[in-house]
């Protein structure tokens, strides 16, 4: 309205506006009132917070004075009260800061940024103790545009110490890490080797520490063929989660920086961060030496087996109390058993032994197990195929620190051949002794024969002269006759002695042994018939001719026959078996053997070693000189042969005369 009058409508509208304004003012007033109360309450609260906040709060001046500090600030720095602190600290930079330049740095930062958060420095407490603090600070201006600082302080000494301890621990770990000769590593999930890899890791793969620091990926150090396997192994490790102990080792082929490959064993454990896998940590073992050792061991086991095979020595081991016994392959071979793949038992061993031998072996094992003593035993075994072997065993206990036998070990050697050789050697030795005995006795006996003969001759001559005297009483004549007979006996002995004396074989010629024996049998046919002796003579038709002193060999045959005949005296069944044969009983070569067997009384064991001794006789005095077999022995010996006796199935004795078919066998007398 332009004329200045207001319409009612207008007035009403204005009134309404005014009323609304009043209402608004009233509301505002109410609010103000309320705000004031709230403000007062806030201020109260803020004061409370200021006083009781666990962080130090302060207001300070660039010049280095505190304007206001709270309780916590006082406590952190060890003052008595806020007032006392504000009064006492006149130069914050030099009184509070351990490194005063830090305050300069802080102020510079504040000048640049207006606010600094988490500034860490060291403060002196009032008692001189140093503490670590973290400062939040902002520069403000007061109403007079003067700069002041308002900040908070947190005592982080404990945190810093913990961090320091951690750093120290890391340093120590790092040191140890590099000191440990085992390659250690950490890789992330993409296979990058972290800088945590130690010196040994670098060295093992031919890298320098710097190479590792520059970064290595697993693909550089493991052959491609193995990478896929690593991935699946890692996945398996992740599924399993945290690994206790050293976990599972995986074998891979590593690559050195120079491209050469080598076997490794990796122990890996996944690293989790907040439950999420972030990588792996672990150790690598270079298996080169181990593989070499394994190869060396394998070779050494092989050569041990070879040595056992060559030496014919097998071994066994038994853990006391267990069922199974370890047998070496060679032992199985010695025992002649096939089933060496399965664990052997003592029961299997005992099966190969006769009851007596079983006791010997059992005894040795028990002595070792119970008394801790070793034994040296010899016994025989009968292989499953029936062959008999001589075995020499050393059985020893393995004793632990408590003196208890934990294991028993045995070394078994097949000594069958050795024993045979020993027996042959023993036989040869005995024969040599016999031959020596006979040879020295032979030399002696020739002289003795002569020495006896002259006195015998003188006695004989005196007796003859006495016998020629006339008018002798009959009993005198009888006595002289007996004396003459006894002289005859003496002379017979000298004849035997002479035969026995070693006259060298000289008239050697090729002869037919069958013919020789036939001739002797013809000569003795009547005597044998009279004695009631049957004969069984088997001539080998293929017997080759042999070089012998025929006369002496006849003597041998005669003596053998005579010996057989007298052995069968008084026996009901008298059979004289004679056989010729060609064989290779001796290793030295082909031999011709004459076998003379009787059905007489046999030779008692105690007589066996003496039967070839001169003057050994079981006949009554006067019936034999005891030189027959001795003479035969000497002659066979001269021919390079052997004569031996054993008892036979008919209860009598069998004599074997074997003569070498080669001429070299013939010995020339020295």
């Amino acid at each position: 309205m332009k004329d200045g009058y207001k319409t009612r409508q207008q007035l009403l509208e204005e009134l309404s506006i005014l009323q609304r304004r009043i209402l608004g003012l009233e509301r505002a007033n109410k609010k103000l009132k309320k705000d004031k109360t709230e403000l007062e309450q806030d201020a109260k609260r803020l004061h409370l917070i200021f006083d009781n906040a666990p962080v130090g709060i302060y207001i300070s001046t660039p010049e280095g004075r505190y304007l206001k500090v709270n309780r916590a600030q006082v406590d952190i720095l060890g003052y008595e009260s806020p007032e006392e602190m504000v009064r006492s600290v006149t130069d914050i930079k030099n009184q509070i800061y351990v490194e005063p330049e830090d305050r300069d740095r802080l102020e510079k930062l504040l000048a640049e940024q207006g606010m600094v958060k988490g500034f860490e420095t060291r403060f002196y407490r009032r008692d001189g103790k140093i503490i670590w603090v973290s400062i939040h600070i902002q520069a403000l201006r007061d109403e007079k545009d003067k700069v002041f600082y308002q900040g908070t302080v947190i005592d982080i000494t404990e945190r810093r110490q913990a961090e320091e301890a951690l750093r120290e621990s890391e340093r120590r770990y790092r040191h140890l890490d590099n000191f440990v000769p085992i390659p250690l590593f950490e890789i992330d999930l993409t296979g990058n080797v972290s800088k945590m890899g130690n010196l040994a890791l670098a060295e093992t793969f031919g890298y320098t520490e710097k190479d590792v620091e520059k970064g290595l990926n697993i693909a550089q150090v493991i052959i491609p063929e193995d990478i896929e396997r690593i991935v699946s192994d890692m996945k398996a490790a992740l599924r399993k989660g945290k690994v206790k102990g050293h976990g599972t080792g995986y074998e891979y082929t590593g690559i050195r920086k120079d491209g050469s490959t080598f076997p490794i064993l990796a122990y890996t454990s996944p690293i989790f961060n907040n439950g999420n896998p972030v990588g792996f940590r672990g150790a690598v073992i270079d298996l080169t030496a181990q593989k070499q050792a394994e190869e060396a061991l394998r070779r050494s086991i092989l050569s041990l087996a070879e040595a056992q095979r060559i030496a014919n020595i097998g071994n066994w081991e038994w853990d006391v109390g267990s069922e199974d016994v370890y047998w070496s392959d060679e032992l199985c071979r010695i025992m002649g058993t096939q089933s060496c793949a399965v664990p052997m038992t003592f029961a299997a061993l005992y099966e190969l032994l006769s009851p007596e031998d079983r006791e010997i072996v059992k005894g040795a094992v028990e002595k070792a197990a119970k008394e801790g003593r070793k034994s040296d035993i010899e016994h025989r075994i009968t292989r499953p195929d029936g062959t008999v072997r001589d075995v020499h065993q050393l059985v020893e206990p393995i004793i632990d620190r408590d003196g208890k036998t934990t294991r028993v070990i045995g070394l078994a050697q097949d000594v069958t051949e050795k024993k045979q050789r020993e027996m042959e050697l023993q036989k040869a030795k005995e024969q040599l002794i016999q031959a020596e005995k006979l040879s020295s006795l032979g030399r002696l006996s020739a002289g003795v024969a002569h020495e006896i003969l002259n006195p015998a001759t003188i006695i004989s001559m005196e007796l003859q002269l006495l016998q020629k005297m006339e008018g002798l009483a009959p009993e005198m004549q009888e006595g002289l006759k007996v004396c003459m007979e006894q002289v005859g006996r003496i002379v017979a002995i000298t004849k035997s002695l002479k035969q026995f004396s070693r006259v060298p074989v000289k008239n050697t010629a090729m002869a037919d042994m069958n013919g020789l024996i036939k001739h002797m049998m013809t000569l003795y046919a009547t005597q044998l018939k009279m004695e009631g002796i049957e004969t069984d003579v088997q001539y080998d038709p293929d017997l080759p001719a042999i070089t012998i002193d025929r006369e002496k060999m006849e003597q041998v045959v005669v003596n053998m026959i005579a010996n057989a005949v007298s052995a069968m005296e008084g026996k009901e069944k008298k059979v004289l078996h004679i056989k010729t044969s060609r064989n290779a009983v001796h290793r030295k070569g082909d031999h011709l053997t004459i076998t003379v067997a009787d059905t007489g009384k046999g030779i008692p064991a105690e007589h066996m070693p003496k039967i070839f001794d001169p003057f050994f006789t079981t006949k009554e005095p006067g019936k034999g000189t005891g030189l027959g077999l001795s003479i035969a022995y000497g002659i066979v010996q001269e021919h390079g042969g052997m004569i031996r006796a054993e008892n036979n199935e008919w209860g009598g004795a069998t004599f074997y005369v074997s003569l070498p078919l080669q001429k070299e066998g013939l010995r020339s007398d020295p």
Partner: protein
Amino acid sequence: MERILVVDDETQIVRLLQKYFASKGYEVHTARSGLEAVDRVKDVRPDVVLLDILMPGMGGLDTLKEIKKIDPKIGVIMITAVIDEELAKRALELGADDYITKPIDFDYLETCVMVKLAQLPG
């Protein structure tokens, strides 16, 4: 009277042979060694020599040779041990006329001597 020379290193044997042949009427000379025998042969020219083969020093076989050198007509009967017959055979090859073995059988020896003496010429 026939002369016999008995040669043996064994005194008793010499004595007994001497006694026996003396009793049978022979002229018996003796020697105890081969050398002595050769001297005796030279001295007494015996008809028969009974000569032992085994003697120390000059043995019977060498003595035999010496005697036969002096006079091959002298009969030499060797005396040898029964166990040394092969020596006697060797002596026969060297010119001995016969041999007998010890122990000596007087009857047999005397026969041998008589046989030899009968063979002697003149």
